[in-house]
C-alpha cells in the first residue's frame, strides 16, 4: 500500500474547504509536481516515449505542414502542424479570432493521406471546421512577434538570442485554446478512459502543447537557416530548455471550474493530500537543504518574472520579499520531526497568500516517492446524483453546515449582485456584464453557486414549515427548479473541495483568481495578467527537450527537476558555441 493509499484510507488532516476553497487562496496557487505538465513529462520519461519528425514541409517563410510521431509503449500518435501566413489585422488571441499563425491536432494512430487532407481542410478552421474522430486534441497558436523576429534575426546571424527575451516572454508561440473531449467532432474523452497514455485529465492536451514547443524550435531554426544558410546556427540547448509555450486565456475557464465541481474537487484533494503527506514526513538535514535550495530557486524565478500588471508585480514582489525570512527560518529552526508543520503554521501567520502557497508547493516537491502516485487520481467519473430519499431536514442541516459561506453573502445589495456572467452570440465567448447597466442578465449563465444555494435553502426552510417530515424528492416534486442545486449540494458534501467559496456576482470578485486556479493545475508559470479577466502564462518553460527524452534518461529525478526555471547566463563567446542548423536533432 502506498502512502497515498494509506492516507485515503484515513483522510485526516487535510485543510478545511473553508480555507482552501476561498477564491483569494485559489488565486494564489502555484504549479506543483502534480500539475499536468510535470506528470506528463515524468510519464514520458518513465515509459521511454519517443518523438520523431516524419514530415517537415515548410517553405522559406516557415509556412507549410509538419508531422511528428509520438510512440509510446501502448500506442502511436501524431502531432500534425499547419503553419500559415497571417495578417497582423487578424492576429487575436480571443476566441472570436478566425485565423492563427499555426493550427494543429494530436491524432491517435497513423495519419494517411486521406486523413491529412481532411485535417488540412478543417484544422486551420478550428471551431468552424468538422474535426475527425481520430483527432484527440485541436489547438492553435499565435506568434510572439517580437520574440520570433529576435530569434530568427539572431540565429540567422549565427548568434544566440538574448535569454532576457525569454524571461520577459517565455515562448515563441502562445496557444489561445486547446480543445479536447469531443469538441467540433474530436474524439470523446470517454474513449480515453482505458488508454494508459492519456487517461489522465488534459494529458493529451498537454502532449499536443509539448509537440508544439518542439515545432516552434525547429521552425525558428528552419527560418534562420533559410534566411542565412551560411551563418545560421541552431538554438543553444539551455535556451531551448528555457523556451516554453505560452497560453492566452480569458473567462472561458470560469464556467469550466463551476461546471466540473467533482473534477476540481479531485484535483484539489490530490494537492491537499500531497501537502498532508509532505507535512507528515520527518525530514533530515538533506531535506532541509533541498528545501532551502528550492526556495532560493523559486525566489530568483519570481524575481525574474516580468509582468506589466501592477497588482501581479506587487504580489510577486511581496513573495520575493518574504522569502528571505523563510530562508532564515529554515536555517535557524531546530530540525524537529514536525518542522514542516511548524513551517506552514509560521507561514500562515506571517506570509502573504502567494508565499504561503509557494511554501506548500515546495514541500510537495520534496517528496516524489510519497506524492507522485496521486497523479493517477486526478480523474473522476462526473455525476451529480440525487439522493431523493434524504430527509429534507437533513439536507437543510447539511447546507447550513457545509455551505455557510454561501448563506453569509448579501445577494440583495447592488454590490452583491453587480456582475452577471453570460455567453455572447459571438462564438459563445464568455463575458461579464454589469447587471443593472448592460443587457443580457435574463440569459445569465448560472455559474454563481452561492446565490442559488441561498435561494434553495430558503425554499427548503419554507417547505419544512408545512412538511417537517418531507424527503428531498417530496420537495423537488413541488419545486423542481431546485433539482440541480440540490443534487450538487448532496454530491459535493462528499467532495468538499468542489465549490469555490465566493460570491461570483460581487463587485469585488476577481475573475483572475478563477483563471489562475485552473492554470496552476495545468502547470502554468509566469502569470502575466493583461487585464482583470485575461491572462498569459507559460507552460513547459524549463522542461526537458525532445532530444533529451529520446535519449532515454537514466536519472529520472534529475529529468523531473525543472520547476521554477531560471534565466540561463548569456554566453560570452556565442559564435564559439553555435552549431550549424543542420545539426538539429529531429
Amino acid at each position, binding site marked *: 500500500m502506498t502512502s497515498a493509499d494509506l492516507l485515503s484510507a484515513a483522510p485526516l488532516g487535510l485543510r478545511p474547504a473553508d480555507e482552501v476553497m476561498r477564491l483569494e487562496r485559489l488565486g494564489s496557487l502555484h504549479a506543483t509536481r502534480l500539475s499536468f505538465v510535470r506528470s506528463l513529462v515524468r510519464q514520458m520519461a518513465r515509459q521511454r516515449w519517443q518523438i520523431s519528425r516524419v514530415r517537415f514541409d515548410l517553405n522559406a517563410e516557415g509556412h507549410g505542414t509538419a508531422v511528428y510521431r509520438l510512440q509510446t509503449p501502448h500506442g502511436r500518435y501524431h502531432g500534425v502542424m499547419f503553419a500559415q501566413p497571417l495578417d497582423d489585422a487578424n492576429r487575436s488571441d480571443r476566441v472570436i479570432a478566425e485565423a492563427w499563425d499555426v493550427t494543429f491536432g494530436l491524432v491517435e494512430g497513423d495519419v494517411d493521406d486521406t486523413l491529412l487532407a481532411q485535417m488540412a481542410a478543417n484544422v486551420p478552421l478550428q471551431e468552424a471546421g468538422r474535426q475527425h*474522430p481520430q483527432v484527440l486534441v485541436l489547438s492553435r497558436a499565435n506568434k510572439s512577434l517580437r520574440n520570433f523576429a529576435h530569434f530568427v534575426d539572431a540565429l540567422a546571424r549565427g548568434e544566440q538570442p538574448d535569454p532576457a527575451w525569454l524571461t520577459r516572454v517565455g515562448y515563441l508561440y502562445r496557444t489561445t485554446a486547446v480543445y479536447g473531449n469531443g469538441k467540433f467532432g474530436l474524439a470523446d474523452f470517454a474513449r480515453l478512459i482505458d488508454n494508459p497514455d492519456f487517461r489522465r485529465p488534459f494529458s493529451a492536451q498537454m502532449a499536443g502543447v509539448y509537440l508544439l514547443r518542439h515545432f516552434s524550435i525547429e521552425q525558428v531554426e528552419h527560418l534562420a537557416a533559410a534566411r542565412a544558410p551560411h551563418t545560421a546556427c541552431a538554438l543553444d540547448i539551455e535556451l531551448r530548455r528555457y523556451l516554453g509555450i505560452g497560453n492566452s486565456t480569458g473567462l472561458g475557464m470560469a464556467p469550466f471550474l463551476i461546471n466540473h465541481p467533482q473534477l476540481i474537487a479531485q484535483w484539489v484533494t490530490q494537492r491537499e493530500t500531497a501537502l498532508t503527506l509532505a507535512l507528515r514526513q520527518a525530514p533530515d538535514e538533506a531535506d532541509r537543504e533541498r528545501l532551502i535550495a528550492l526556495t532560493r530557486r523559486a525566489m530568483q524565478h519570481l524575481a525574474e518574472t516580468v509582468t506589466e500588471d501592477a497588482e501581479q508585480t506587487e504580489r510577486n514582489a511581496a513573495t520575493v520579499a518574504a522569502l528571505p525570512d523563510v530562508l532564515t527560518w529554515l536555517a535557524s529552526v531546530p530540525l524537529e520531526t514536525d518542522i514542516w508543520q511548524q513551517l506552514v503554521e509560521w507561514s500562515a501567520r506571517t506570509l502573504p497568500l502567494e508565499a504561503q502557497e509557494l511554501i506548500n508547493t515546495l514541500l510537495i516537491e520534496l517528496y516524489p516517492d510519497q506524492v507522485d502516485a496521486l497523479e493517477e487520481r486526478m480523474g473522476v467519473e462526473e455525476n451529480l446524483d440525487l439522493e431523493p430519499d434524504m430527509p429534507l431536514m437533513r439536507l437543510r442541516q447539511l447546507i447550513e453546515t457545509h455551505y455557510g459561506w454561501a448563506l453569509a453573502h448579501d445577494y440583495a445589495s447592488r454590490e452583491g449582485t453587480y456582475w452577471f456572467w453570460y455567453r*455572447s452570440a459571438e462564438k459563445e465567448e464568455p463575458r461579464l456584464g454589469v447587471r443593472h447597466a448592460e443587457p443580457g442578465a435574463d440569459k445569465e449563465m448560472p455559474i454563481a453557486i452561492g446565490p442559488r444555494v441561498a435561494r434553495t435553502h430558503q425554499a427548503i426552510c419554507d417547505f419544512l414549515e408545512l412538511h417537517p417530515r418531507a424527503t428531498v424528492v417530496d420537495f423537488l416534486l413541488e419545486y423542481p427548479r431546485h433539482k440541480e442545486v440540490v443534487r450538487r449540494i448532496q454530491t459535493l458534501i462528499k467532495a468538499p473541495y468542489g465549490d469555490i467559496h465566493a460570491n461570483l456576482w460581487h463587485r469585488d470578485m476577481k475573475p483572475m483568481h478563477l483563471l489562475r486556479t485552473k492554470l496552476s493545475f495545468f502547470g502554468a508559470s509566469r502569470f502575466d495578467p493583461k487585464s482583470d479577466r485575461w491572462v498569459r502564462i507559460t507552460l513547459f518553460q524549463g522542461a526537458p527537450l525532445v532530444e533529451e527524452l529520446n535519449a532515454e534518461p537514466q536519472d529520472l529525478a534529475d529529468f523531473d527537476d525543472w520547476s521554477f526555471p531560471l534565466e540561463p547566463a548569456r554566453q560570452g563567446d556565442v559564435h564559439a558555441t553555435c552549431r550549424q542548423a543542420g545539426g538539429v536533432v529531429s
Partner: protein
Amino acid sequence: MNVSYNELQGLCRKAFSGIGFEEGDAADAADMVAWMQCHGLHGVEQLNRGLDYLLAEDPDALPRLIYQDGDLAVLDGQGHSVLRSISLATELGFAKARARGLSVVKIRRCHNRQLIMGYLSRLAGRGMNITAFWRNAQVPLTEQVVGFRAGHTIPEVRVYSVRDVPEENEPNDGITLVMANHVELLPSLGADHDLDLLAHHPESELLACRQLALREGIQVEDAIWTRLKELAHRILVESSEASRSGAGAGEHDND
C-alpha cells in the same frame, strides 16, 4: 454529419435551455437523448419527432402526483415529453424502493417514452434493479419492456406484439416502472405466451453500439442539428461593442 457524444450532449443541453428548461432538466434531457443515440436507440430521431410538441408545452404544467403510499405512486405526466421533469417521478420510485425494497410508479399521459431509458440508466448505475414497461401501439398491440440490472448502466430491451389482444384495449400512453433494491427484474418472455418478438437488444449489443459511437462518432441529420443550434442560440446574448470589452481582452495581439 458526424458528431461526438459530448458535442451532442452539449448542444442538446443548450437547446433545452433555449427552449426554457430549468438547468437541471436541460442537463437530464440532454443526457437522455445522447445516451439513447450512442446506444443505437435513435435518441435524436425521437427528439426530432417530439420537438414541436416540446416547444408547444406549457412549462408550468409539472408532472402531478395523483396518488402515493409507501410502495406505490401514480403521476399525471400532463401529456408532456418525458424529457421535461420526468426524472423526479423516477427518483420517487427510487426513493420508495430504497425504503421498502420494491416500488411501482405509474406515469400516465406522457410521450417520447423511449427516452426515459437514458435517465433510468443513471438510477441503475446507482444500484437499482429496474423494469420499465409501456405499450407502443394498440393495433397491433405492441409492448416494450426494458430491464436494468443494478449497477449496470446498459439495459436489455425487448419489443414484442401480442397476438391475443384483450377485449379491453384502451389507449395507454403511460409508463410503468418497477424498481427493486435487491431483486433482479430482467425481462424474459414466457415461452407459452402468444407473442411475436419484434426486437431484442441485449446488453452486449447496446454496449457495442456505444463503443462504436465513441470510436467513430455519431451520425445525425444536418437539419435537426441546425434546428438544435438555433434553439441553443436563444441562450446567447447578442454582441455589441460594449459587450466585447466584457471579455476583458484587446482586439489584436501583435506584440
